[in-house]
């Protein structure tokens, strides 16, 4: 109701023509800087110059590329799970706090977002390298003899990506939790549910839209992640984005790079559709 009222009042102030003029820069930017280049890029995958599935077939037939895509999906799924497991409690805490404490936790979540991904990834290098803080601490505690190899492994990629992407998980869940009136949980408690039961039967299901949104964002961002795996990953953690950049910049094989991008995009879209289906199911419950 409130939303409808605002929209009509806005329409009252700005005529459709004015609104269009105001939107034009954005539309122009979207078409010129996004739709056109992406369309051209994707067209390159199947027109060379005539229609061909040669490049797509090459990507699908080679075990190397299939493996890289599977690994990318696996890492993205693992990062999503880890971010959810770590992010949900933080979101829950944020939604329950008020005043200074809430401000502090929110700042802790948001400030990393304002820091470059590069910096955050380098921070992990400093922490995890052979003479780094973590190894130093482990040795000081007498837990390990020599330094452990913590950097340049798939586990490091998981940890660093989860860290970088965590805010994208926390914020939508926080939004969903904040939108749940406190009375729902009170009602559950009043009706005989303990704190845990009331969380599982009421708070958790009501926050599902936020969970799905957070998981979707993190999963999709993970699929295309480039900088962090390149910096902290070992040579064996080759991911789809790195593969595409190799083809595009190293080999200048743009049609094949496009074919790989097309496959990544298609996979991403499938995930979006599946997630949306889940989302609408959870809404209809």
């Amino acid at each position: 109701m409130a939303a409808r009222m605002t929209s009509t009042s806005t329409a009252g102030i700005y005529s459709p023509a004015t609104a269009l003029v105001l939107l034009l820069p954005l539309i122009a930017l979207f078409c010129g800087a996004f739709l056109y280049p992406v369309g051209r890029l994707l067209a390159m995958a199947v027109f060379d110059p005539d229609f061909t599935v040669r490049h797509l077939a090459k990507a699908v037939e080679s075990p190397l590329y299939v493996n890289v895509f599977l690994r990318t999906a696996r890492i993205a799924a693992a990062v999503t799970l880890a971010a959810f497991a770590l992010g949900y409690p933080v979101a829950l805490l944020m939604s329950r706090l008020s005043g200074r404490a809430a401000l502090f936790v929110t700042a802790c979540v948001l400030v990393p977002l304002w820091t470059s991904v590069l910096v955050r990834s380098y921070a992990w290098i400093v922490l995890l390298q052979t003479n780094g803080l973590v190894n130093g601490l482990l040795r000081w505690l007498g837990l390990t003899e020599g330094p452990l190899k913590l950097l340049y492994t798939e586990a490091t990629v998981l940890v660093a990506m989860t860290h970088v992407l965590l805010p994208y998980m926390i914020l939508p869940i926080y939004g969903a939790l904040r939108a749940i009136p406190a009375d729902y949980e009170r009602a559950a408690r009043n009706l005989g549910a303990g704190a845990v039961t009331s969380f599982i039967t009421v708070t958790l299901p009501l926050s599902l839209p936020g969970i799905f949104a957070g998981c979707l964002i993190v999963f999709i961002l993970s699929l295309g992640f480039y900088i962090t795996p390149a910096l902290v990953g070992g040579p064996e953690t080759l991911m789809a984005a790195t593969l595409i950049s190799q083809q595009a910049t190293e080999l200048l094989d743009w049609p094949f790079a496009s074919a790989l991008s097309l496959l990544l995009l298609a996979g991403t879209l499938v995930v979006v559709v599946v997630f949306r289906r889940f989302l609408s199911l959870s809404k209809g419950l």
Partner: protein
Amino acid sequence: MNSVSMLNDVAGAGVAVESIRKSYGTVVTAVDDVSLKVKPGEFVSILGPSGSGKTTLLMMIAGFERPTSGRLIIGDQDMTYTRPEKRGLGMVFQRYALFPHMSVADNIAYPLKRRGVSRAEIRQRVEAALKLISLDGLGTRMPTALSGGQQQRVAVARALVSQPPVMLMDEPLSALDKKLRDQMQLEIMRLHRTVGVTIIYVTHDQEEALSLSDRIVVMNRGRIEQVGTPDELYDEPASAFVADFIGRTSFLAATCLAVEGSNARMRVNDATEVIVPVSRCRDIVVGARVRIAVRPEALKLAVVGSAQLSGTLEGSRFVGSSELAFVRIANGELLQVQTEPGVSRKLQAGSPVGIMFDASRVSVFREGA
């Protein structure tokens, strides 16, 4: 009547609030040393303006807030610090708080599931509850697909289905329009009569409290001003606040001149002297500044000169069975005077009028008390 018997065999429990305080930090005291005894099966309203502490008191009874000090006894058990889910109370929330991701039937079944009631019995009791609130067949609907009044009834059914000895209601009708509210008031009264549950009902609407309750607790600034039946509150308000908050009241500033036997002589308006029975005065000493609270029906229009007070008619309002005349007296106070229909509206605004009052029906309070 089988459906009602499903909810019928509840014995209401008494609730005793003993010297309960709730303060936040050192500055804010939301509830200040409140004591209250609610008898089993009684319908008690807690009435007060916003910020009076009535909701905080209810939250402490429900277990959502911990009292800073004091005791809470429900039935014969000390439940001051018992977790809300262990108190076995029913509660209806201001906006019903029906779980939006569960069907109507699942909402009503929720407290039964938590208590481990068998599946078959749950189905039976949910159906009975739906019948009781005349929503049979709508169990599979989602709460958002119901009207406000229907949601309200589901919320009541959900609160009652586990047969709680006490039901708490937090302004349950405030989201409904006037007509529906009147209708729901009747339904709540019917339920209270048939089920026999103790009801503690929080509201800021005095009419609602007057028409529903056995007794009313009037709260102001975290304290109880008065506890009494609707009649007592109306006829014998314990404080100027209660007199003002319940029903229509006009106030006259006066000075107590003398106490003579069972009567007190007061000077109103720096000129007129009136005699008020001492029984209608609270805490009065000679020479004190007082406020005389008068209901419109204790005042009468009269011919100027023959009357105790005189003033100017500012206007009048038709209120159905009678009329209210608004009269500004010499010291600037505005009095509401009840008249027969058609009487005051015949008079021109600005006409001088006299006012007689029935001294046996006024209440006199110390100024600033």
